[in-house]
């Protein structure tokens, strides 16, 4: 082994690598939806308690991400998109990642219980366990439906935010859960269409790898329909006002329009997959816009 390689495996990991384990960019969406769930509850929350609840959601998401990277280090090494992460790049040993992830998970759940309530802490614990055990360990390498069921893990933050504010879980946070749950498959399948060679090389049974491009494009369109219904539903059910209803309807129609373009597209190479790339980018904006509109509707316009 050359000295550079020896140094890389024996040196203590840099603190920036621990931060990278928490997937900070993914965390921003988790924090945003969690915060919106809390604000949409429209009950007075002490700012310190509210801040702590959001911090716990972020730490819980970071813990789940660290444990995901610990378990998937071998997969990450095979994919261009993930090969430079701390574990596959050899900047950190696996045990450090495991200890960091488990410690952060316990810390976030205990702090959530102490600062807010047992319901919020329980949902946070379930979301971490779901992401690590159900999605990462059980489903991801076994079934092309991995992202469908595993998507539930990312749908918990607004429920946790709501529970932290109110101490209960009602129909609106359940609909917000359903919205993210149904949004996840089209979002990830759009991505997996133009990076499918990566997934194929790593042996991950994503839908484009196992069922082909045409079936994946059909699935994206099929999931967009119930997603749109779940997005608009709070309005006719009287859980949100007209402002949210109009924003949700308009953005869902645009989402559906791009999903139809994806369905029509016959490109087999990433260079020809502009609709897929557009759908992936728009899906992120979609979630930010809908949750932002919900908060604006509940807090300022009601």
């Amino acid at each position, binding site marked *: 082994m050359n000295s550079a390689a020896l140094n890389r495996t024996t040196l*203590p990991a840099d*603190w920036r690598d621990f931060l990278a384990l928490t997937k900070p960019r993914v965390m921003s969406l988790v924090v945003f939806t969690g915060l919106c769930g809390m604000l949409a509850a429209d009950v007075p929350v*002490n700012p310190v308690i509210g801040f702590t609840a959001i911090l716990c959601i972020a730490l819980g998401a970071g813990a789940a991400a660290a444990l995901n990277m610990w378990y998937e280090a071998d997969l990450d090494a095979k994919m261009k998109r993930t090969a430079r992460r701390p574990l596959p790049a050899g900047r950190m040993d696996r045990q450090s990642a495991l200890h960091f992830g488990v410690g952060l998970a316990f810390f976030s759940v205990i702090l959530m219980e102490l*600062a807010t309530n047992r319901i919020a802490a329980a949902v946070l614990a379930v979301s971490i366990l779901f992401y690590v055990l159900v999605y990462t360990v059980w489903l991801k390498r076994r079934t092309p439906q991995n992202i469908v069921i595993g998507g539930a893990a990312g749908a918990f933050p607004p429920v946790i935010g709501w529970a932290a504010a109110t101490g209960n879980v009602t129909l609106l946070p359940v609909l917000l859960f359903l919205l993210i749950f149904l949004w996840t498959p089209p979002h990830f399948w759009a991505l997996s269409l133009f990076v499918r060679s990566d997934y194929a090389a790593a042996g991950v049974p994503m839908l484009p790898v196992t069922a082909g491009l045409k079936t994946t494009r059909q699935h994206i369109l099929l999931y967009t329909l119930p997603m749109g219904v779940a997005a608009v539903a709070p309005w006719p059910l009287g859980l949100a006002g007209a402002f949210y209803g109009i924003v949700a309807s308009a953005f869902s129609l645009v989402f559906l329009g791009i999903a139809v373009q994806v369905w029509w597209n016959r490109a087999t190479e990433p260079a020809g997959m502009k609709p897929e790339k557009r759908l992936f980018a728009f899906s992120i904006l979609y979630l930010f816009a809908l949750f932002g509109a919900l908060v604006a509707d509940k807090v300022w316009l009601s």
Partner: protein
Amino acid sequence: MAVVTDPEEEVRRRQKGRAIVMAVLLAAFVILVYAITIAKMSINR
């Protein structure tokens, strides 16, 4: 940027970086627990 070649020096640099980050996080945690205690007391009053 200077390239550090001595492994021992690099180990010390990383340990120092981690120690500083840990100290900042612990201080932040102490402040947070204090603020939560005050907030809980004002809620329960």
